[in-house]
Each structure stands twice: as structure tokens, then as C-alpha cells.
């Protein structure tokens, strides 16, 4: 009973992550890669992502503190961040990256800062949801690889 309930919860969370646009089909690809050889593959990847993205966010923070802003550098870091985010299918975060890069291109420092703040918010939200998701998934059992509702 508990398991079923957990599974349903997991499914619900996943459902909402997709519905609300936090994740895209890349996440499903990751789940498909998960197998007996790597039963926790998705979580493993997401953990790698957290590590890498934290580093990049910190770099961006520092770069945005400089005066004047080095837009090329900002763009480069954000490019990396976008690539990284694409690895787990972090849709909203990716979209914010694109916006940020656009501001870099137009040398809009204020726009960059605003966009960066927004991006950090999305990132934080996603991270929290994913943590809940994985927690529940672990409780529910390994079979829980739900697919987004059609």
C-alpha cells in the first residue's frame, strides 16, 4: 500500500515537473538509460549536474560583480551552463540561459543581472523538486520510471 501510494506520488511529481515545463524529454532519455548495470543512473547524472552547475553559478556570481562587466566571459560561462542544463533536460533553466546570453550579446548588464536572478530561482526550484522526486522514488522502489503523461 505504501509503495503504491509512493509510486503514485512519484508519478504525480514527475507529471507536474513535465507539465510545468521544468523538465523535457531529455530526462526521459536518462531514465531509459537506467538499467541493471546502472540502477541509479538518473540520480547519478543529476548529482553530477548539481556539482557542475553550482560551480558555474558561483563563477557567474563573481563575473557579475566585476566592473565593467566582461560580457564575453559571461557568455562563455553561461554557454557552459546551458550545455550542462541540457544534459538533464532542465527546460526552464535552459530558457533563462538563452535569455541571459541574449543580454550579453546586446551588452545589457542590467538585463544580465535580472536574468541571472531569475535563472537562479528556477534552478533552485528544480533542484528542490528533483530532490523530493528522488527521495520518493527511492522509497517507492526501483521500478518507478514513469513516463510523462501523454
Amino acid at each position: 500500500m505504501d509503495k503504491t501510494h509512493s509510486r503514485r506520488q512519484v508519478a504525480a511529481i514527475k507529471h507536474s515537473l513535465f507539465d510545468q515545463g521544468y523538465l523535457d524529454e531529455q530526462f526521459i532519455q536518462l531514465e531509459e538509460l537506467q538499467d541493471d548495470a546502472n540502477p541509479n543512473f538518473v540520480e547519478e547524472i543529476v548529482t553530477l549536474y548539481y556539482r557542475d552547475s553550482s560551480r558555474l553559478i558561483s563563477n557567474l556570481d563573481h563575473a557579475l560583480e566585476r566592473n565593467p562587466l566582461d560580457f564575453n566571459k559571461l557568455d562563455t560561462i553561461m554557454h557552459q551552463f546551458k550545455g550542462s542544463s541540457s544534459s538533464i533536460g532542465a527546460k526552464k533553466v535552459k530558457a533563462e540561459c538563452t535569455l541571459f546570453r541574449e543580454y550579453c550579446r546586446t551588452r545589457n548588464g542590467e538585463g544580465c543581472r535580472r536574468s541571472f536572478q531569475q535563472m537562479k530561482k528556477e534552478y533552485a526550484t528544480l533542484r528542490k523538486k528533483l530532490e523530493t522526486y528522488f527521495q520518493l522514488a527511492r522509497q517507492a522502489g526501483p521500478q518507478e520510471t514513469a513516463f510523462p503523461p501523454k
Partner: protein
Amino acid sequence: MTLLSNNMDNGCFSSPRHDAFPAGLRVLVVDDDPTWLRILEKMLKKCLYEVTTCCLAIEALKKLRERKDAFDIVISDVNMPDMDGFKLLEQVGLEMDLPVIMMSVDGETSRVMKGVQHGACDYLLKPIRMKELRNIWQHVFRKRMHEARDFESHEGFEALHLMMNGSDQSDDGNLFAVEEITSIKKRKDADNKHDDKEFGDHSPSKKARVVWSVDLHQKFVKAVNQIGFDKVGPKKILDLMTVPWLTRENVASHLQKYRLYLSRLQKENDQKSSSSGIKHSDSPSKDPGSFSLLNTANNKQQNDVAIDSFSHSDGSLLFQMDAPSHEGDLKGIVSEPTTEKSRTPPISSQMSLNQPFSSLESSEASHAVFDCTIPTQYSWGEFPKGPLKEEQKTIVQLEDSFSHLPLHGTRQHIQVDQSQSNASINSNPSITKEEVAPSLDIKPLYAGYKNDYVSPMSSIGSAVDTFPNQSKSLIVNDQSSEPIFTSTLGLKTHGFDLDCISDLDFYQRNLLLGGEAASAPLEDDLNFFLLQTDWYNMNFGQQNINMSECYDPRLVGEAPSYFYDSSDYSSVDQSLFIA
């Protein structure tokens, strides 16, 4: 995953691990993003490939270099901190000759284009899907097939590449490409019959993956330079390199790449360098008629050859190029004398190119420096199209007729090189190796016409084998005033041009374009020239070409102006074709 049929398997991948191709494909993944690196590793493993990961480009290169033949394909990200992905791509292509796939989250067209330009066989956008990775084996397979095929007709392809790359005037280059290749291919096929046996059914199985280490590449470059770029051929390089395990096939494909690489560099250089004669800057190339008979392939092989014929005392100008088969190439020769017309006399001495030029021509010569042939100061550009067309036709006829002509029994291959930009061939012995591919009939005819003129010259040049390998076509840029050496250099794709230039300068000075220079015409040159004249008289007579009639007066009478008006030219042409 689809598996190839058995014969395919065996044919292409003979090693045991490739029995279930594409399973076991050895992939090297390079990406500075640790998340993606892990994902790709997993995905590739799912495809049953053998995966090695690297997060630094430098490390990847090291891995590639130390374990030769250890990988089948490389997948690399474009943006990496230690080295630009495009650079890595180029390096791998040149050194290891492996297919490389680029990846990036950025799918901008310009980036993708850059990737393709640098040699990427594919460009994937992140996020990458499984199905995309499942298909990467086709790049490996395709490459191997091409290499096997290329090997057979590599010269044809090389010629094509050389022409395409080297020709500044893309039109011209392309004009002859097909014909050239066909003729070259035919010739090569014949030549390579025995080779074909070696290679069996063109399957790449015999070909082991060769990793072109820095050392090996150095040896290769050294051999190429020693032979002379335009004379180079895989067999020669192979012989010089003395690497026992290396096959001609390996060298051939590497040579192809090297040429592409150099031509790219050359293009940049060309753009910077003035038309100092290196290029046939003038334009003639634009003319439909002007085509460069680049027998690149021929040249390569024949450059060496050409020269011996020169010494015919019977006046046959021919240098025989042993060029494979160009019996019918007389044409070039025939017409040449005529064109020389007035110029020839004074020029002859210079033209005699015998010595000086031969060295020049050894170079890529394929660009037959026609300039010589265009005695009439005709800059190609000026040449009216109309008459040209006629000429072309007639040239064809001429060719035909010539082909029947014994021509002293020698085959003359005239290389008509477009580079001659402005016909002022006159004294240009731009004789870049002359070889005229038989197929050049049509178009080249026109050019051939010029070539004809030139070729004797060039042949002379080429005839002189005394020259060192660097065959530099004596192409002098016609930009300089009339006595222009056609600079086939432009056609050459590589940096040998520079070498040639100095030679050209030398010759130019010595060339009597206007009859002045003469300062140094070598005795040989003079003789040559005389020979030529004789040849005109004699040969043409023999050949029923009343060229001598037509041209002699001109040759003699005209003031040493190297240009004759178009009307003269046309008539000359026509007379040429009478035969």
C-alpha cells in the same frame, strides 16, 4: 542495432571485435562537461560500442597518438577550455585520419558550417539522442569505403582536388575537372591494374588504420618536398619514406588530405600575395577557353618525365612526357609554334627554357603555363569569346588530326595550365609540366591552343630534367608586362609557389620577352628555340598543318611584340585547324 551482412563485416572490418559490426566500435569521447561525458559514455555503451572518455582535448590527442589504431571514431565537443574543438578536429583528421563528430548545445548555422569546413563528418546538437549515436558507425564505414575506392583512383581524385583547390578560378578548375579526372582515371586504371589485384575488391580490409604520428608526418612532408610537390605521387613518397609497414594506400589518402590542407593555406597566402606572378592573376581563367589543363595527376607522375623529349633535333618539340597516354596531345604542341609567331624568335632563346624552366616546371606544373602559348600577347582576359569558341572546336579537330600524327613518335603532353592568365605566354616557359590529358580536348582545346604555344615552351622547360624536383611552373605572371610567365603557380595549391617565384624572377629576367633580355638565354635555350622553329617548319609540314606557312612569316616578321591582335589570332587559329 543493425548488423552488417557477413560479407560486409569481413570485408570491412576483419578484426574479431568487429565481427558483429558495428558493435565494438571504438569511440573516443571528448567533452569538458562531466555530466555529458557520463551520459554519452552510457549511451554509447548501450549501443554496444567500446567507449573511452576524456575531458581534455590535449589528453585526447595524447591518447590518440600513443595508441595508434586504437580508435575508430572521435566525438568531441566544440567548446573546450584547453583547445578549440575545431583545432582538435583538424589535428585528428590530419594526423590520425579518423572520422570526427562535433557536438554542441549551440546549433547556429555558422558554427555547424565551420565544423564541416574543418572536416567534421557530422555535427550533433545537444541534447543528443540515442538514435543519433546509434548511427555514428556509418561514418566509419563510409570513410573506409572511400579510402578503398580512393586508393584506386586516388590520383584522379587528387587531381581533382588539386585542381579544385589550386585553381583560383573556380570555373576553370572545374571545367577540366571532369575531363581530367576521366582521363586520368582511365589512365590510372590501366596503370593500376596490377594494383587492383593487390587490393582485391577494394575492400578496406587490407588497410590497417594508420596513425600519422608527428614523426611519420614529418617523414611524409620531407619526402614530398624532396620529390617536388607537383611531381609527387604516393608511390614516390612511399619509396622515400622507407617505412616498411606503410602502404601506398595509406600515403595516398594522407596525401589527399595534405593537399587539401595546403590548398587552404595557399588560398590564404594567395589572397595576400600580390599577383606577383604566382597566380595567374590575370584572369584568363575566366575565359571559357582558358582552362587549366591541370593534369594534376599526370603532372605528378609525369613531371619527371616530360623532360627528356626535348632534345629532338628533328625539331619536334616534344617533350615526351610519358605521360600516360597522351598521344593525342600533340595538339598542344602543334599549335604552339604557331602562336609563337613573331615572338618566337627572340623568345626562343628564352623559351628554351630548357634549363631554367625545367626546374620551374617541375612544380605542380600542372598548370601548364600557357602563357607561353599565347604568344600573342593575348591576355586571356582579352580574348574574345567568340573566336575562342571556334578555336575550341577547331582545336578539337586539331587534336584529332594530331593525334594521328606521329609527332615524332613522341607523345607530347602539354599541360595547359590555366594559369597563364594572360596569354602573354610568349616567353613564358611556364612549362609546367605539360601534360595534357587527352580528355581535355574540348575545353582545353582552347586552352590548349594557348597551351600549344606554350607547351613547346613548357615542354622545353620540362624537358630539361636537370632541374630539381621542385617543379615550379614557370609561370610568370603576366601582370608584369608582356613577357609574362604564366604563373601556374596560382594553380598550385601550395606554398611551392614561393619557390617558384624566385625562379621565375630569374627567368623572367632572362627571358627575352621583348627580345631584350636575352641576357642569359642559355645556349640550350637558343637551340631549343631554333629547334622549335624548325619544328614548326618540319612538323607542321608533316602534319599538314600549314602552320609554318601561316605562322612563319609571323614568327619572323613580327616585331617582338608579344601580342597580336585578335584577328591574327583567329586566323591563326583557323589555320591551325586546317590541319
